[in-house]
């Protein structure tokens, strides 16, 4: 079992885990943007830079994907590593200076303003971290979106920039987006994934009208054998609150006083 030393702190580690895994487990904070524990490391944002001892020289590496294979000495708060992380943060903030999430992260790194002009175009503050694409491909298995184009022209896109025929509107992309570029927006009986333009019907709670899920997503998940969504599919969909009230009413049917009120139909 190798030992990883993070600045002064000595930590036990498993072969094959990353420096970031060790740091998180030991309460050492390293900033990240494109990292997500449920997804393969992509190491594109370059925020999690740290220095490692190569015996004679120190190498700058990304903590999120550097594999621990033997004892390792890591400098997290060295001047060089801090300067590198701040430099990367400035570049990101220069790209999307209006983003509140980036501003908060930058402040945490000691940066109030980018110090650089905006020279690239970020559609809705997208920083090309790739989390949405990876979530859709690796976890959902649909791969409805991808990174299209190259260099500064790169953007997350559906094929041909048209509403996707493969998208199940599950909203995983919106859930993982760190800067709010992607939004899962409900209008009446439809949900739209902004900015992709893909739309589809939503299922609402039969009792209170709360949004349950996109039809397509529910179908897709049911199709993968998830018993939990059967209720959604057979027309008797209730949100969890209404389901609980219904259950409580059924359980207390025999009690004096009649139990809680029945769930009411609410107009959509």
């Amino acid at each position: 079992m190798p030992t990883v030393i993070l600045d002064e702190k000595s930590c036990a580690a498993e072969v094959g885990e990353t420096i970031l895994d060790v740091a998180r487990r030991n309460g050492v904070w390293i900033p990240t943007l494109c990292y997500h524990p449920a997804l393969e490391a992509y190491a594109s944002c370059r925020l999690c830079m740290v220095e490692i001892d190569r015996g004679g020289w120190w190498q700058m590496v990304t903590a999120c994907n550097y594999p621990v294979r033997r004892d390792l000495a890591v400098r997290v708060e060295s001047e060089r590593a801090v300067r590198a992380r701040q430099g990367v943060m400035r570049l990101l903030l220069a790209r999307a200076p209006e983003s509140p999430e980036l501003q908060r992260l930058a402040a945490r790194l000691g940066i109030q303003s980018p110090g650089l002009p905006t020279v690239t175009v970020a559609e809705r503050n997208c920083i090309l971290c790739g989390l949405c694409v990876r979530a859709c491909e690796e976890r959902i298995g649909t791969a409805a979106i991808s990174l299209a184009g190259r260099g500064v022209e790169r953007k997350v896109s559906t094929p041909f920039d048209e509403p996707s025929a493969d998208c199940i509107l599950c909203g995983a992309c919106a859930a993982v987006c760190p800067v709010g570029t992607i939004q899962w927006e409900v209008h009446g009986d439809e949900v739209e994934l902004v900015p992709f333009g893909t739309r589809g019907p939503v299922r609402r709670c039969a009792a209170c009208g709360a949004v349950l899920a996109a039809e397509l997503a529910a179908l897709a998940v049911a199709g993968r054998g998830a018993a939990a969504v059967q209720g959604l599919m057979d027309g008797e969909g209730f949100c969890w609150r209404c389901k609980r009230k219904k259950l409580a009413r059924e359980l207390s049917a025999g009690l004096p006083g009649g139990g809680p009120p029945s769930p009411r139909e609410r107009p959509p």
Partner: protein
Amino acid sequence: MGPSEVHEQCSRRPQQACGANPVRRIIDRYGGEPEMLIPMMQDIQAAEGYLPREHLRTLGQELHVPLSRIYGVATFYASFRLQPKGEHTITLCLGTVCYLKGADRIRDAIRDEFQVPPGGTSPDGKFTFAPVNCLGACALAPVMVVDGEYFGGVSPASVVDILRKVAAGRQPAECAADAGNRQEEGREARET
């Protein structure tokens, strides 16, 4: 089917746009291997002049590759076109040596004269303009290629002249023959 057999059947330059199931034929040429996606796309483009959407959808379905990945590949590599190309293709070298000899101004001259943006097609459909970062013919800088025909030692004025002739219907090969004779003189004149 191993690589050897596939190569025996492989024809690098398909002659014309194919009929019934052109994409299937191209896929079979490479043994249906998803790793050969890029050569398959290159063959489709060679046959059709660009990458038609329907062909890309078929490719994805047949190879069990998500359309989003195919779209990503089609938009990443400079040689792929998603729009039909013009009657003639202009390739202009923007490599270091050509740049030092004024390729920038040649690019601007082509763009201004024929209203064709770099990477795009002119409004009248005559020219598709594809600047490239080095053709490997540095001794002849600046270099322009029209429909496969090389023109070395060009200038903003000479490219406009050549392209006007091509637009009017002359074969690039004929223009190359004329240009060759004047190249030597032109170069000497420019160097004084």
